[in-house]
């Protein structure tokens, strides 16, 4: 017999959720949005070396918000999973949906069984081809996975950023337009952001196998001008 006290499960889940939400909303937001040639991932990040947006595989990218050590470990696990799957089967068999599901299961397991939930939210983007659609999956701190049709926002004041982005963008447009809208949505009307404080990655087909590309400050400046 365990000698722990009875805790109302609803209370427990609420407490954990509140704890995780607090951690996640303290950080900055990241937006993933589909544009006419690919998928954009854009976020506020004052560090040029501790990345939040990263390549996972040929057509898959990752973005994480919340505690860096927690989401970076998930990023590494995702790269391992993808490289291993591609090695054992074939590169075409690496699918973002399967990866997003693994993230959801793991994050959900930690939420319900762990001492402390993970204070992270994750976006997994996939650039489509003949085999698979272009997709953005969002995995929340308690393991909820959602398939976002056009764009998704995690971290910071996600709801507010989401609302602002939806105001300017209602359909798929060019990279230039999407970057501009995303930056406006992040800052809101009262704030401006230096290009150096933005982290931007895209998935776009340019003829080579790997489609992820980190955009330099100069390139972002050019897109915003």
């Amino acid at each position: 017999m365990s000698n722990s006290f009875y805790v109302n499960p609803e209370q427990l889940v609420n407490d954990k959720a509140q704890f995780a939400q607090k951690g996640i909303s303290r950080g900055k937001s990241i937006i993933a949005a589909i544009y006419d040639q690919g998928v954009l991932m854009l976020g506020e990040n004052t560090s040029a070396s501790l990345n939040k947006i990263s390549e996972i595989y040929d057509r898959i990218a990752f973005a994480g918000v919340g505690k860096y050590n927690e989401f970076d470990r998930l990023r590494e696990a995702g790269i391992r999973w993808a490289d291993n799957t591609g090695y054992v089967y074939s590169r075409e068999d690496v699918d973002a949906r399967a990866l997003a599901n693994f993230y959801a299961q793991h994050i959900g397991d930690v939420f319900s069984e762990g001492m402390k939930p993970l204070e992270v939210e994750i976006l997994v983007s996939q650039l489509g081809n003949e085999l698979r659609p272009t997709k953005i999956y969002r995995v929340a701190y308690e393991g909820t996975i959602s398939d976002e049709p056009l764009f998704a926002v995690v971290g910071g004041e996600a709801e507010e950023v989401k609302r602002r982005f939806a105001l300017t963008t209602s359909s798929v447009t060019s990279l230039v337009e999407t970057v501009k809208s995303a930056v406006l949505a992040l800052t809101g009307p009262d704030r401006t952001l230096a290009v150096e404080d933005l982290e931007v990655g895209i998935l776009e087909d340019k003829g080579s196998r790997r489609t992820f590309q980190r955009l330099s400050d100069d390139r972002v400046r050019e897109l915003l001008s």
Partner: protein
Amino acid sequence: MGLPLFNSMTDPGPNFFEYMQSVGHQPFGQGAMDEQAHATTVIAVRCNQGVVMVADRQATAAYVASRDIRKIEAADRFTAMAISGSAARGIQFIRIAQLSFEHYEKMTSSILSLEGKANFLSPIIQNNNFNSPLYVVPMLAGFDPNHNTGRIFEYDGAGGCYERSDFNVIGSGTQFAEGALRLGFRPDLDLEEALELAALALYEAGDNDPSTGGPDFVRHIYPIMVTLTKDGFQEIEGDAVGERFRRINDRRAESRGIAGGQLR
């Protein structure tokens, strides 16, 4: 398989080979078959712009097992891997090298140095060659963007890694190709001269070594030729390679197969 998560004590880091072993993959297990396909001659020559490489296309297993095998592949943008010995292990080896370099890059957001790549392969070669009769002797060559020069790394059967300042040959045609290279190599070769010398050396190997395939004018299968320069790994198009070997062949046909005391 679920998500491959580790705690900080057991984490294999950005090393994909170590990760594979930690989850029980043994890509280079023991083998006992002795009648399997062998891949032969590959040549690399340094020049003022980087490195050029050429390889024949034949794999043998007491007969011609393949006429169009590829023994040189890009390991990443600036690096090429070449194989000789067991074709099965060699191809496995190229896959693991390609994957490991890319894995490291994605995990750490930085590119492994050329020397780092060369050293990484040593224990894997040693492990394979000491435990299995399926011998593999690869070669790593590339343009080193950190030092702005072409570099060639050769391995012995025990996995020892040696940097070569001039040229290197692996495979059964080595002694014949090496003869031509020793006579023709100069430290100031330009790209075109290096390509021609490498092609001549491969022609020699194809002429003298029964396992090395020469240019196949009947099937239009020609050696693979690549350049590694500041522009990265570039493969020369098949027709252009065929044209080069046809010229060599014509010159040799004129003199009835005799080189006649010069590289021609």
